[in-house]
């Protein structure tokens, strides 16, 4: 699966969004006033049909699909495309009002865009999403304008990871609760010479930098945009402004390596954190301990890294969600059958199977963390999720990056975020100018100009 829940997938998924913007923008402009949101009036048939499921990931285990077919009479044709290509296909098919799949990817960052364009059926028309919400905390990331655009099929959220050995060797508390304590601990690690640059911030002008800032903004008690899409970070006392100051300051102070100016999030995880060159990543991806840092083939810090409740201003802060979901495009031939598949695919039973709780033969390759809390709990108690006990409370309290849903203009906004923050990090502009630059862009995008 193309999941942020695992490091390799995360780097791919996050670095793609800006690349997607160009193709999607052209497709959107081509489709304006055209087939956008139009429904092809798919069949309500739910038995004896074949549906196409297009996701950026390996096919589900054949035995699981066979069981689904036996139980429902629905045959599933699985199409695997990389995340970028899939988004292009979704846009092209919706714009041309042409069928390509009955169920496909809905990414958190595109929820606002997809909701506004009406390209997907509202999931509350097919599933009891209200009942689902309690067990699926990240469902909130898929709601926009009162509709649920997709159902998350796994969990992904930003977390803080620390190399406990390095914190201990420096004689500092390996569980700092506030960002002040955390920063001081990093200073001690540097001062004691445990590592020269203890903090990992991927300052390359790429999506990973934007994501890092969102999480840091939340840790400073702020939000990026309000429900109307207005920037919340131009006031020097705002969370976003302080987060940017903290990040750039960490670089200036030497807590972050100067070379990080060209480091992407995946490089930061795989090279710096996994090779023991830094002591902590403030905004890492959920699941990386099990999928990367504890894997001997890719890590020299096996058993040394653990999740830390993200330090906030007065204590642990919320973890922001960035999951992928699945929804039903309006051009689906069999939307009702697709809904049955989604219900099955995201059920607690299937998620525990896919997570390997009920045996490796039922496991789904690369499936990181289930979207259902009950499945994560089963996974943790079964010993199938590394440090699951630490992840569960984070998942429970995780919240959307944008309370009002990701804006339709998210790709351009993210581009402005990482471009300006990168410039601030290089010293070519001040933090204030960077924040104003991002705010101006947000205002311009929100006004449609």
């Amino acid at each position, binding site marked *: *699966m*193309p999941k942020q829940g*695992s490091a*390799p*997938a995360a780097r*791919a998924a996050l670095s793609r969004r800006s690349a997607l913007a160009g*193709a999607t923008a*052209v*497709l959107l402009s*081509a*489709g304006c006033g*055209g087939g956008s949101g139009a429904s092809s009036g798919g069949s309500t048939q739910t038995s004896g049909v074949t549906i*196409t499921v297009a996701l*950026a*990931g*390996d096919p589900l285990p054949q035995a699981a699909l066979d069981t689904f077919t036996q139980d429902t009479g629905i045959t599933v*044709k699985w*199409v*695997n*495309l*990389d*995340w*970028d*290509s*899939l988004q*292009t*296909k979704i846009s*092209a*098919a919706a*714009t*041309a*009002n*042409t*069928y*390509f799949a009955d169920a496909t990817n809905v990414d958190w960052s595109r929820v606002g865009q997809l909701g506004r364009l009406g390209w997907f059926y509202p999931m509350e028309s097919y599933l009891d999403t209200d009942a689902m919400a309690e067990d699926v905390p990240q469902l909130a990331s898929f709601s926009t304008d009162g509709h649920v655009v997709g159902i998350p099929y796994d969990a992904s959220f930003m977390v803080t990871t620390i190399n406990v050995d390095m914190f201990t060797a420096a004689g500092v508390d390996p569980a700092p609760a506030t960002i002040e304590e955390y920063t001081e601990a990093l200073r001690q690690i540097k001062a004691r010479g445990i590592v020269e640059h203890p903090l990992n911030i991927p300052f390359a002008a790429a999506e990973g930098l934007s994501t890092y800032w969102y999480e840091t903004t939340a840790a400073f008690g702020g939000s990026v945009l309000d429900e109307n899409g207005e920037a919340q970070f131009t006031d020097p006392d705002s969370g976003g402004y302080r987060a940017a100051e903290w990040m750039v300051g960490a670089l200036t102070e030497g807590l972050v390596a100067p070379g990080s100016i060209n480091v992407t999030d995946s490089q930061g995880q795989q090279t710096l954190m996994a*090779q023991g060159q830094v002591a902590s990543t403030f905004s890492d991806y959920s699941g990386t301990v099990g999928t990367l840092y504890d894997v001997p*083939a*890719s890590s020299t810090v096996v058993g040394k890294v653990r999740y830390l409740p993200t330090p906030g201003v007065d204590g642990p802060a919320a973890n922001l969600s960035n999951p992928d979901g699945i929804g039903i495009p309006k051009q689906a031939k069999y939307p009702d059958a697709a809904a049955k598949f989604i219900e099955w695919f995201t059920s607690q039973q299937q998620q525990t199977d896919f997570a390997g709780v009920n045996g490796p033969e039922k496991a789904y*390759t*690369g499936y990181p963390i289930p979207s259902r809390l009950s499945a994560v709990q089963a996974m943790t108690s079964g010993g199938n999720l590394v440090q699951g006990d630490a992840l569960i409370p984070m998942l429970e309290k995780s919240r959307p990056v944008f309370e009002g849903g990701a804006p339709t203009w998210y790709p351009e906004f993210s581009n402005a975020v990482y471009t300006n923050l990168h410039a601030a990090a290089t010293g070519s502009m001040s933090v204030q100018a960077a924040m104003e630059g991002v705010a101006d862009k947000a205002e311009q995008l929100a006004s449609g100009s």
Partner: protein
Amino acid sequence: MRTRTPALRWSGIVLVLLWSLIPVYWAVKTSIQTEADARSSPAQYVPTRPTLDNYRALLTGSGDVPEQIRRASLNIVIECGLATIVTVVLATLAAYAFARMHFRGRNLLFYALLATMAFPAYTTLIPLYRIMSSLGLVNTYTGIVLVYVSGFLPLATWILHNYFASLPVSIEEAGLVDGAHRLQVLWHLLLPLARPGIISTALITFLFAWAQFLFPLVLSSDISTQPLTVVIASLQGRHVVPSTLLNAAGVLAIAVPAALALIFNRYIVNGLLAGSTK
């Protein structure tokens, strides 16, 4: 200054070559390494234990990924081959007509055809997708080939037009005086003379078709028609594909166009320069 010029020139050439070839070298190097060697730190700049296992796995191995790569390789050969043949045939006829025949609106039609080359490909994607969908040609070889032909025909026509225009009219007139009709003149007299131009056009069309990604991505739905370019990209989204295998697939994907470009370099350059000088 005179003595420095060659040094500067060679420095520039070396820089450009390194810039272009290092990524290719890295892909080739990774493709002949084991996964452990490819991931070793510090990185191995030269493989210490080169192996062809990744190529063997792709070309003869069983399993989902090798089978997809082989099927996608077949698809791309079929799609590019058919597109090239159809494009060259149609372009030859069109170019001959535009270069030699006199009819009302000839120049207008010719320049209109050339003007389509200025349209960004994205602008035609959605209309073509809708047309192919309404004709039931999505996810078919026919659909993909037709779109390729529509895309490459203007350039091919232009290249061949320049070739035909550069040939002496007297040869054609002699054929007509001897009683041959136009198609006979074209087939027996002009085509042999224009063979370099036709080869150039075929090569350029084939290479352009081989490099296509967006159109086949949108117009194909599954492995039955997806070309290698699309399938290799899709493998990125999978967790179980080793980077060495991915690089081997990538090297296979560039091997064919690279070989063609190297072997027929002269034709390609001539084709692109056709008509640029008198």
